[in-house]
């Protein structure tokens, strides 16, 4: 496997940071990330298509574009071109029309990619009119659990949960979900960790519909949140990003997942989370600090069990939650440094700050889950 790495801005066009691939026509896929503004303007597309005429172009908008251990300036776009010796990739696209179709979108994407030599799937999506949890259930429903699925919900720079732009072989558009299948001699490694700790008493979600929680322990959800947040409650919903909810199904042994608060309704006293918070689930409030998040990021890359070697190139896709960025603030890049230190110069690291992450819990629990507040990494290389 060989990799090119490029950066684009309006003044200079596409510039190579790293070029290993001699014959650009053989490039299988490019991962391209940048802000919604530059994605929407689409001034970069034709030139990159001309450089890599046969490649699948995927990617999309971000709430912060990751390149190595930095977040690049908002006017830039980052691209990584992957050229395989023996492996192949395939792209599946689904349009988002109705939130109720989320489960079926997941199912259809996977069925389009199914094959005996399928090794890994990366999913990228816009989140408007899409239920992330249902999408993930759909992805899991139609696949052999040995095939790992990772990826995330693309973000955008306003960080207001607005439409994200998805790139899928043509100028970036909203309202689509894409999945990329990797086949043949591909080796994939993945890890996901948050660095958040739960606190306070164990509670029960007593009234909820989809991603809206009305009551926790029989009390209006917003009142409970305010009581516990104290002074910080004045800054809801923004302060809510700092206090996500850890939820789990008390009827099975699955690990808890984190849900990020997205909006509050002062009239209905309800809380709206990024994804489903089912009624009857147990819940705890969560907190973290900067060191906790950076340690979480380091655990995520170590979980991959990927050992970088000098004679093997690899691509690392990092998907990190926007909530982490808000807390880490000017220290955001520190959570990228620990990953970059681990993978070294032979692995190209790009990615995006997201509205949600998709990854299996661990090597043992391969079914993918919809996460919030995590750093999720996927390393793709060839045997």
């Amino acid at each position, binding site marked *: 496997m060989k990799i090119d790495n490029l950066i684009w801005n309006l003044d200079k066009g596409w510039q190579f940071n790293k070029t290993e691939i001699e014959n650009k026509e053989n490039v299988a896929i490019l991962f391209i990330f940048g802000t919604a503004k530059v994605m929407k303007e689409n001034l970069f597309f034709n030139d990159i298509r001309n450089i890599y005429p046969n490649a699948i172009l995927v990617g999309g908008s971000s709430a912060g574009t990751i390149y190595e251990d930095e977040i690049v300036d908002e006017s830039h776009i980052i691209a990584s071109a992957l050229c395989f010796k023996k492996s192949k990739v395939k792209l599946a696209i689904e349009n988002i029309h109705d939130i109720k179709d989320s489960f079926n979108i997941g199912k259809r994407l996977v069925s389009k990619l199914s094959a005996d030599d399928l090794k890994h799937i990366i999913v990228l999506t816009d989140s408007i009119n899409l239920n992330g949890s249902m999408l993930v259930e759909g992805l899991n429903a139609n696949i052999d659990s040995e095939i790992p699925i990772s990826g995330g919900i693309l973000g955008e720079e306003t960080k207001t949960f607005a439409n994200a732009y998805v790139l899928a072989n043509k100028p970036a558009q909203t309202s689509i979900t894409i999945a990329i299948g990797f086949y043949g001699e591909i080796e994939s490694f993945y890890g996901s960790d948050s660095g958040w700790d739960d606190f306070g008493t164990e509670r029960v979600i007593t009234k909820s519909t989809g991603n809206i929680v009305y009551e926790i322990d029989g009390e209006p959800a917003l009142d409970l949140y305010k009581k516990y947040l104290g002074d910080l409650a004045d800054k809801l919903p923004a302060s809510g990003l700092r206090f996500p909810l850890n939820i789990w199904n008390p009827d099975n042994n699955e690990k808890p997942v984190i849900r990020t608060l997205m909006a509050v309704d002062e009239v209905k006293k309800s809380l709206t989370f990024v994804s489903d918070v089912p009624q009857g689930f147990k819940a705890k409030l969560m907190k973290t600090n900067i060191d906790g998040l950076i340690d979480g990021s380091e655990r995520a890359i*170590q979980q991959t*069990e990927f*050992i*970088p*070697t*000098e004679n093997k190139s690899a691509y690392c896709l990092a998907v990190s939650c926007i909530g982490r960025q808000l807390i880490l603030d000017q220290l955001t890049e520190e959570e990228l440094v620990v990953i*970059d*230190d*681990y993978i*070294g*110069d*032979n692995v190209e690291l790009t990615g995006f700050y997201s509205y949600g992450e998709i990854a299996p819990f661990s090597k043992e629990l391969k079914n993918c889950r919809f996460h919030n507040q995590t750093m999720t990494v996927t390393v793709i290389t060839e045997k």
Partner: protein
Amino acid sequence: MHRLLKRQIKKSFGVKNLDELSPELINFINLIGKTYNTLDLDKKILENTISANTKELIELNTKIEIEADVRLKELIEQAPYGFIIIQSDGKIIEANQFACQVLGYSKKDVFLNLNANKLFEKFDRFSFSDILNLLSKNNKLSFDDSFQNKLINIPVEITAGKLIIKNVSHILIMFQDIIERVQSQKMKAQKTREIEELNKGLEEKIKQEVNKNLEKDQLLVQQSKMAAMGDMMGNIAHQWRQPLNTLAIAIQDVEEAYMFDDINEEYIQSFVKSAMENITYMSKTIDDFRNFFKPSKKKEPFKLRDSIENILQIISAQLENHNIKITLSGENYEVIGYPNEFKQVIINLTNNAKDAILENNISNGDISISIENHSARFRKILIKDNGGGVPKSIVNKIFEPYFTTKEGNKGTGIGLYMSKTIIEENMRGKLILKNINGGSIFMILIPTADQQERDLNCK
């Protein structure tokens, strides 16, 4: 008809007598007069009603006031606060039950026989004249005081203020027993002192525990070195076996050569040369051993490949003896750190690999060490073995101190812990273990000289 009205009508019509007007007009004027009288009566009735109502209201108000006064008096009488009203000449005109009881008098006594000057003699802080004096400057006073009642000193909080009753200025004294508050403050102070003492004790305890931990760490280092020394002794024994054997054969040969009269100058020279070569080799092994156990005092530049080769010279004989192949590849990158400690890590990790190979009875044991350029910030050493890998259940524990899977007293459980400490804490690098097919791999990241400098600047 009302006189005033008659006069006004005469004046308006310019007549001296109303009879001078026409009968219709007179009738009309009479009608107005009646209406006027009616209105006048109504006015009077209304005035009366208002007056009666007002009177009733006043009576009611008085009644309410009296009732309120009674209630207030009851309230004051039963309140858990002391109320005393004193005339400016010092005569106590009112006091509630609480005040009497707390001050040790029946109500009658207080009323009739006690002067405020006398009463305030019981208090510790102010006399009545002091209070009068202070109230001439302020409308209200609040202060803590105490008084003696049957050998008990009772702390009280006193509020004194001016009170006007029937236009005459009086002094209102209110007080409450604050014995519980004072006791709780005393208890709080006591608890605070206790906590402070406990904290002092805790600080001391923490210091002691930290020192104990330091001692433990030092002991760990020492134990680790001793364990490594044991391994090294084994290695030296292997290294010396061959030259000792050669020397023994040569010495036995001297005896035989003497018997067969073969000893001449040439024989002696050859004997001395061979013996000295072997002795020099043995001496060099001892030097390597000694250098290894000399702790590095400060960070210094050293070359990764040279250091590892140095170790391989010492350990390779023992590995060969176990039929374990060890190879080294990669550039001789220079890094900055503690070279002898680094060597100790390489010994620990290769020993770990060797033990895994032996425990799992791997016939073609293979340990490969490669040195790679990881990034601008780090150089990388990969130590890979085919010893079967680490069971998943313990993979997260192997760097914990005193954790060992080795039987009996073969393992101390500190080798990998010390290795991680040396690489990550002392040299600011990373030591990671991963399972691979049929074995495991240790990845060591050592900061480059540039990175070390950056780390120092960041401190």
